[in-house]
């Protein structure tokens, strides 16, 4: 396996709640290799964006972070804000879930794309904007030089997503976090944006954390997959292995709901929503101390609710967090 770029150990995030802290992330572990793509999947509210924000050091006010995030050999948990500012937009970059609202509505996009390069590279505005033209051209925005002066409202959703990607690529980050890059787009554009991300990963040797509740997108782009539920990773491993032989009841349910997985065809196919499992994700206060999936699981037994099940290997590099794996297969 290639050199490990990012290694997350026992990462916890507790959000302030009315009746005490609410666990938004319950001690998650994963790794991303240099140049690798990890797909993070799970239903709405499972903690995918929270994971991304924890990595960026941009958690909501009052959130408590613990555990370890090692990135390029450095521990990020506990790093002072100024050091995090130096990393953000520079070594780790992120595109956000809502391209409609994630760009400043009153600033031309050229300046928004140029800003991180001026900040981290010390480029002058002119140099940074020349570079922005190159990036916008690379992400497929037509007529980029003229577009520098455009405002976000003048772009389509797909174009805004491309601008967000260009904005994130400015300083050639080692890790790009793409939070739901295709969710807000229509099907043909989804396929194009996904293809663009795959090309960029390939040509830049950049690692990608691809967050999506669109399993097709992840199957098409990711080398590895982690499945989240209720702030915990319930299964992770190489994409081929997880998609061919899901072990955890939740992952089984998700993947069984998909039509035949043929990665080549999948990019751009209609989204498979994760709705095959009865019930819905409870809010953060609704989880007990044990397996977060217990309330919706068909195999639940008393012991499931006692303690969080640990991740146990099911095949090389592939593990799942369920105490009844033996009974299931």
């Amino acid at each position, binding site marked *: 396996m290639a050199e490990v770029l990012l290694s997350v150990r026992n990462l916890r995030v507790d959000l302030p709640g009315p009746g005490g802290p609410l666990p938004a992330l319950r001690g998650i572990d994963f790794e991303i290799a240099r140049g690798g793509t990890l797909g993070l999947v799970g239903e709405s509210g499972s903690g995918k964006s929270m994971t991304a924000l924890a990595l960026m050091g*941009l958690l909501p006010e009052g959130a408590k972070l613990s555990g370890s995030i090692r990135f390029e050999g450095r521990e990020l948990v506990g790093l002072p804000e*100024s050091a995090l500012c130096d*990393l*953000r937009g520079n070594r780790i970059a992120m595109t*956000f879930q809502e391209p409609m609202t*994630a760009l400043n*509505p*009153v600033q031309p996009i050229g300046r928004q794309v140029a800003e991180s390069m001026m900040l981290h590279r010390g480029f002058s505005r002119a140099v940074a904007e020349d570079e922005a033209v190159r990036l916008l051209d690379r992400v497929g925005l037509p007529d980029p030089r003229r577009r520098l002066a455009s405002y976000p409202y003048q772009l389509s959703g797909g174009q805004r997503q491309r601008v967000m990607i260009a*904005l994130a690529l400015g300083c050639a980050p080692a890790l790009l976090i793409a939070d739901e890059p295709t969710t807000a787009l229509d099907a043909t554009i989804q396929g194009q944006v996904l293809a663009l991300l795959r090309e960029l990963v390939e040509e830049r040797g950049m690692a990608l954390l691809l967050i999506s509740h669109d399993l097709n997108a992840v199957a098409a782009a990711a080398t590895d997959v982690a499945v989240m539920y209720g702030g915990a990773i319930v299964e992770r491993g190489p994409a081929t292995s997880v998609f061919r032989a899901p072990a955890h009841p939740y992952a089984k349910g998700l993947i069984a709901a998909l039509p035949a997985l043929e990665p080549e065809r999948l990019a751009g196919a209609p989204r498979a929503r994760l709705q095959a499992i009865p019930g819905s994700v409870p809010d953060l206060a609704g989880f007990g101390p044990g397996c977060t999936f217990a309330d919706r699981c068909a195999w639940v037994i008393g012991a499931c609710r006692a303690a969080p099940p640990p991740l146990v290997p099911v095949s090389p590099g592939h593990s799942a967090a369920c105490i009844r794996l033996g009974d299931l297969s």
Partner: protein
Amino acid sequence: MSVFLAKRLATMVATLLFSSLVVFLVLEILPGDPAQVLLGVDGTPEQLAVLREKMGLNAPAAARYFSWIGNMLTGDFGTSYAYGVPVWSLLEERLALTVPLALVAMAMTALFGLVLGVWAAARHNRPGDLAIMGISQLGISIPNFWFALMLILLFAVKLGWFSAGGFPGWEDGVGEGLKALLLPALALATVQAAILARITRSSVIDVLQEDFVRTARAKGLGRRAVLWRHALRNALIPVITVMGLQFAELLVGAIVVEQVFTLPGMGRLVFQSIANRDLQVVKGIVILLAFMVVAVNFAVDLLYALIDPRLKASDV
């Protein structure tokens, strides 16, 4: 952009025409014959008839309305019944006090309101923020005229830094004139500055929650840089609307504060003219106030278009 401006200009003209009509009609219906007032109680009916004819009061209302409007467009606001001088010469003198007073008060409002509001927002829920919120709550609840009296007591009577009232005019230099306006402007500005500080604060706090602020942070900008480079301009959009309204309030408030500080501004002229049934003057003042308010609204619209690119394009 030009469509946006043209529409705003048309609205401005329509508003002015409408307010002129209202003013005219109200004064038409109001009891009291200006010729009678001018003549005094001893006048004979013949004298009254002659005077009414001379003052043009016998023409039909519509004709008088249109000639009034037409004359104003050429800068002729008519002749004061009471003083026998052109209305404009009276207004001019008073405007030279009231407009600078309102402008100084507006500048104070903007300075204190914006600075304190942004400062508090940057310290959301921390001691500095809470202190500003407490002080501004106090500022809002203080009545204008009472605060004006307190300022006079402290700075004029006790400390002797300013005179307790009166206005030296602008002949002795701008400095002297401004000095005389400082206390009245402060009295006027306090409430508005407190209101503006609160509105600015909540607007900035709202904008700081928005997605694009997180994007800016994700680029590696620190909190302060995000506030100045990204949040502020967005936060100003609602704040500017409020400032436009506040200017109108300051103009009206000036009329009251001028009484407390015995300043010879529009305020005094309004009261005298109403008492004298000096209708030409009253009409002139009201139209001028309406014009100033409408003009400020127009300026606000222009600022909007400058701040928010979406407006320029969408020809609202």
